[in-house]
C-alpha cells in the first residue's frame, strides 16, 4: 500500500517505536535507518511498514554497525524507495523478495524477519545470498551507504564536500606525495 511521505513517517515512527521497544527488550537492536528524514525527496513511500522494517533489517545485516556506523545509520530505505520510484520493475521484485524472507522467518522461527535476532537474520540471509533479490538489495544498500558522507568518512577518513567525493570543494590533497597523517 502506498502512502504519502508525511503519513508514512508518522506511521513509521509509531510502528517503529512499538517495534523498537519490543526488539530492544529482546535483543537490543534498533532500526535507525527507518527514521531518517528523506533528503530532498518528495517521492511517495511505496513500501508498507513491515516491508520498511525488513529492508532496514536486511541493510543492517549487509553493512553492520560496528565501532563505526553501518547501514542502519544512513537512509537506506529512502534510497531504495527512490530507486523503486525510478524503476517500476523493482517494487514487485522487492515485495516478492521480502515476502519470501518473512515467510521463511515465520516458518522457521515463528515471527517476522525484522523481529529476529541478529544471528537468526544472518542465517536466513545466507540461504538467499546467491539470489537476485539479495544482489539487488545489497547493491542498493552499498549505494546508499558508500555514497553518503557517513559511508565515505567511514571508508576514507575524509569528509565529502558538496561536489567532491573525498574533500571540500577545490581543497584537494596537496599532500598526495606524503604518507597520510590522519
Amino acid at each position, binding site marked *: 500500500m502506498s502512502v504519502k511521505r508525511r503519513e508514512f513517517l508518522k506511521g513509521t515512527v509509531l510502528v517503529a517505536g512499538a517495534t523498537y521497544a519490543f526488539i530492544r527488550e529482546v535483543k537490543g537492536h534498533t532500526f535507525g535507518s527507518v527514521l531518517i528524514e528523506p533528503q530532498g525527496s518528495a517521492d511517495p513511500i511505496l513500501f508498507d511498514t513491515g516491508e520498511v522494517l525488513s529492508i532496514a533489517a536486511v541493510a543492517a545485516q549487509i553493512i553492520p554497525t560496528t565501532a563505526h556506523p553501518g547501514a542502519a545509520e544512513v537512509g537506506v530505505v529512502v534510497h531504495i524507495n527512490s530507486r523503486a520510484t525510478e524503476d517500476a520493475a523493482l517494487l514487485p521484485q522487492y515485495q516478492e523478495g521480502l515476502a519470501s524472507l518473512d515467510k521463511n522467518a515465520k516458518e522457521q522461527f515463528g515471527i517476522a524477519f525484522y523481529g529476529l535476532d541478529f544471528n537468526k537474520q544472518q542465517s536466513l540471509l545466507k540461504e538467499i545470498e546467491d539470489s537476485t533479490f539479495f544482489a539487488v538489495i545489497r547493491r542498493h544498500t552499498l549505494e546508499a551507504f558508500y555514497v553518503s558522507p557517513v559511508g565515505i568518512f567511514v571508508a576514507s577518513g575524509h569528509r565529502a564536500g558538496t561536489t567532491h*567525493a573525498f574533500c571540500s570543494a577545490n581543497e584537494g590533497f596537496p599532500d598526495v606525495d606524503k604518507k597520510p597523517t590522519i
Partner: protein
Amino acid sequence: MAQNEKVDVCIVGSGAAGGSLSLALAEAGLKVVVLEVGPWWNPLTDYIHNPLEMPGRFRWNMPVTQVGDRVGRAPHSSWGVGGGMNHWTAAVGRFEEEDFKQETLEGMGADWPFAYADLVPYYEKAEAQLGVSGSTSGATPGYVQGNPPNPPHELFYANQLLKRGFDKLGIPSYSGSVAINSRIYKGRPACNYCGGCMMGCPIGAKANTAITHFPQAIKLGVEVRPRSYATQIRMDSRGRARSVVYFDAQGVEQEQEATLVVAAGWTIESPRLLLNSATSQFPDGLANSSGLVGRGLTCILGGRIRGTYDEKVDGFRGFNLNNLESRHFYKTDSKRGYWGGWTFEASSTGHPLSYANQKGPLWGHDLVRHMATFRNNGALSVWGRATVSLDNRVTIDDSVKDEYGIPAAKITYRFSDNDHKLSQEARKRGEEAFEAAGAKDVWSDGPTRGSYWLGGLRMGSDPTESVTNGHGQTHDIPNLFVVGPMLIPGAVAIQPTLTIVALGNRIGEYIANNRQEF
C-alpha cells in the same frame, strides 16, 4: 526540414578529434559548424563527484547491442562538448614507432600510411595544446619520449611504494604523462589532486577540448551546436557529401550543408553514421567499397592489480591514472609465447562504492573487514595490445532503433587466446611488483575491454584494404573525412587521445592547405 546556411566544414562530434580539427580549420580561416549530441557542461555546477549521479549524466542514452564475449548494452562514451574528455583519466603518451608499421614488423593489424616521424610535429602541438605534464627524460631506453610543456607530477605516496617494487624487480618506471596541469598553464590551474577526474574536473586542471580548444575556436568563428544529434550524411547526385541531417535540441530536423563533411564522433557511432547513410549509389553505406566500414574494431586490453599494504596509503588521492608508468613489457618478446605486450600505469584506488565490490559480493562482517583495507590499498592498471581482427566490428542493428527510428549500432567483439595469455602474464607481473613492494594481499582481474575503442574506419594506402587515406579522407568520397581513433589500423597499449589530437591537427592542416580541391 529546416535548412542552414552552407559552411565550409561540418564536423560531427566535439571530442578530442572534433575539437582539435575545428581549431586547426578555424585558424586557417574556414567557416566551421560542429554538431555535438550532448550538452555543454558547466564544470562548476554540473560536475558532481557522486558515482550514482555523474556517470548517468555523462552517458548518452543510446542503445548499443553487444554480441560476443559480452552481451547486452554497452556503456556509451560520455557525451557533451569535449566528448570523452569530460570523463577521461587524461593519461597520455605518444605511440611507439613500431606501432606505425605493425603489419610489416609483426604481422598484426595494418601499417599506418605514414611514419611516426611524420606525426611528431603534431604530437608536439597536441602536447602544448593540452598542457601535458610529464618527463622530458628518463623514459625506458628504446622507447619514444614526448615533449611535455609542464614538469612531471610528484609520485603519489602509494606509487612511491609501488615503484620500490618495480625497482627491486629491475623494471624501469617513472612519473607518466598526463594532460593534467602540474602547474598553472595557459590560464588553467594546477591539479588539486581531489581524485575525481572521471566525474569531470570542476577546476579545469584536466584538459578537455571544451576548455583547451573551443574557446579559441569560437573566437575564430566556429559555431558549436550542442544537443544536435546527427543521423545521416546526405549525398548529392555527383556522389559527393552534401550535408548532415540532425535533430536539434527541440527535436526539429535540420540540414546543414557543407563543402566538406567530417565524421569525428565516437568509434562506435561514426561507422554507424556512415552505414545508416546508405543510398542507392552507396548501398552498403558511405565509403564502404572496401567492405571495411566498421571492421577491425580493436580494444585496449584492460586489467587491474591491487595490493594491500600494512600502512595507510590513501590511494584514492590524486588523479586516476598514470602517475607511475612502465613500458618495459610493451614490445613483443617471442620468449613469452604470444604476440604483443603491455603498459603498466598506476591507478587510483577509486571510490569506496567500487572498492566494496572488488572481492565479490561480500556482505556483513566480511564486507566490513574488506572495507577496512580501503585506505591501505594501491592499484595498478595494465593496458595490453589486443589482437586485431576484422571479425571484431561495428554493424547496424535493424532490430533496435532509437526514438527517431534510426537503427542502433551493434558491437561484435571476442577476445583471442593471445589476448588471454597476454593479460594473464601482465597481471602476474603486476602482482609480483606489489609483492616486491611489500603488499600482503594482492589480487587482479582482467582482461576487460578498457574504455578505448580503436579501428572501424581504418586508414591506409590501399583503397581495397582501408576506408581512408593517411589524411582521413575517404577513398570513395573526396569531401568526406574521418578523424578519431577509428582511423587507427593496429593495436596499441597506450591511451589514444594525444594521438587523436595530433591527428586532428595534422588532418586540419591538410584540409586547410588543400581546400581548393574540395
